[in-house]
């Protein structure tokens, strides 16, 4: 989904090893002249750029002020992008797509130094696209059916989302995810930068619960922030598209057994 901004030929998969510990290249034959690659070509590198939210920075007013969006997107997310690029310049993880990078760098719960920035870049991009001006309300058709199936009712889903968001102690994110193996939607929260991709879940909605996401507009009132997100900002349109994509990986339908 997120690709490096400048064209990078598909990078060969490099095993996750430290550059210094990688096996030495095979020794060249004595006297054989090694073709030196062109310096200019060998310098092609590509890094991540700051993606733009799919609306103007003041489009979410009054529920998320322009000032808050500009700081959050233009400063915080930019810092994560810069931090990630700084690390990739010297990292053996260079060349992965962002999603692969997050999974690799999570390292089964012992995150590598690249993890934090990589996950935050992804999380914020996903967060901006989880919202739209005039959002909120309730989903329709298939998404609503799936929510009613997995939570009992849309009201229950809303309660669960609020409960999960308010019970997160400290900074983090609350997510609506599609569990691959259980084949159902679930609300989870994660600490700091942790991203459910690493657990094999398919994220559907994300909401930033770091204080920087709501402090300028709501101060310490996380409850109003979360309820405004659900009532006025969340984009069920995006959710529908994400669910459609997720269905390529998870069979949500009832098995229909043809009668002979």
């Amino acid at each position, binding site marked *: 989904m997120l690709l490096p901004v400048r064209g990078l030929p598909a990078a060969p998969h490099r095993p996750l090893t430290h550059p210094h510990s990688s096996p030495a290249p095979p020794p060249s034959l004595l006297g054989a002249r090694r073709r030196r690659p062109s310096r200019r070509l060998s310098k092609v590198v590509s890094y991540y750029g700051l993606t733009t939210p799919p609306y103007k920075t003041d489009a979410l007013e009054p529920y998320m002020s322009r000032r808050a969006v500009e*700081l959050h997107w233009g*400063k*915080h997310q930019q*810092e994560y992008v810069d931090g990630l690029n700084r690390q990739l310049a010297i990292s053996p993880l260079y060349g992965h797509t962002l999603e692969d990078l997050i999974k690799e760098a999570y390292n089964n719960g012992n995150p590598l130094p690249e993890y*934090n920035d990589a996950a935050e870049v992804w999380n914020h991009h996903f967060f901006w696209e989880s919202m739209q001006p005039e959002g909120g309300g309730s989903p329709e058709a298939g998404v609503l059916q799936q929510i009613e199936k997995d939570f009992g009712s849309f009201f229950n889903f809303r309660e669960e989302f609020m409960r999960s968001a308010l019970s997160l*102690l*400290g*900074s*983090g994110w609350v997510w609506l995810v599609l569990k691959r193996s259980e084949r159902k939607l679930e609300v989870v929260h994660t*600490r*700091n*930068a942790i991203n459910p991709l690493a657990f094999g879940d398919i994220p559907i909605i994300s909401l930033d619960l*770091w*204080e*920087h996401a709501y*402090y*300028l507009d709501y*101060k*310490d009132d996380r409850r109003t922030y979360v309820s405004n997100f659900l009532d006025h900002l969340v984009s069920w349109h995006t959710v529908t598209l994400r669910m459609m994509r997720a269905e390529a990986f998870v069979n949500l339908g009832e098995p229909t057994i043809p009668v002979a």
Partner: protein
Amino acid sequence: VFLFLRQVSVPSHFRSFYSWAVPGRPPAQSARSGSIIYQPHRTSPRHLDPPFPFPKPSPHTPNTLSMALRTLAAKKTLGLALGGARPPAAARGVATFTLPDLPYDYGALEPAVSGEIMRLHHQKHHATYVANYNKALEQLDAAVSKGDASAVVHLQSAIKFNGGGHVNHSIFWKNLKPISEGGGEAPHGKLGWAIDEDFGSIEKLIKKMNAEGAALQGSGWVWLALDKEAKRLSVETTPNQDPLVTKGSNLHPLLGIDVWEHAYYLQYKNVRPDYLTNIWKVVNWKYAGEEYEKVLA
């Protein structure tokens, strides 16, 4: 009768906690902005209220009825009168915590930390930790007396978080001091010597604490800790509201710096390093030095 009892048993600061929502009973803010006096009979137009009418839970709010009932409960007459019904936690004397006063005005730390930040931080954040800590302790007491083991375990995270929030902030307020009263003055005496010995110089210590604070992911605290056994100073960080004691029972906090975003966001926005640089101008080294000498005495 039980319902009635429950009502009275709510600690007095809970009532003042919610009272701002009652129309016509706004809390008054005294000239010294650090203390808010609850005046139930004052009626004033809404626009004269302080912008965040969140009265400080005051332990001094007199409530004769509940006090009388508590006295009765203490004498166990009430329990007997109810035919053995268990009096609620507060009546049985479960310790409740109250929000401590700030030893200076909200605006006194400007320009290092703005008055608005201090007010929100004290009246909203710290007050919420205290309220939720008391609530969790009451639930814990109920769970213990019911013998509900899983509920007891479940309450641990709330107790650690809210209790830690109360402990940490109570230290944090004492760690700060207005410049006019000697804030930021480098430590003298034994602590000064110990810092030179363990870190090289005070500048190196500050640099180390700033670096660790800036590198801390998410919310948390950075501490100057004293190891009581080894008699050595160290720099520690704790995530979220974990108090320093979670890093080792030997560690005593001399100085804690809040690096939650709520501690600086309104003023410094995303630039945590600037906040960390400026906070040293209002650090109360005298308090840290006294703690150091007290612990090692």
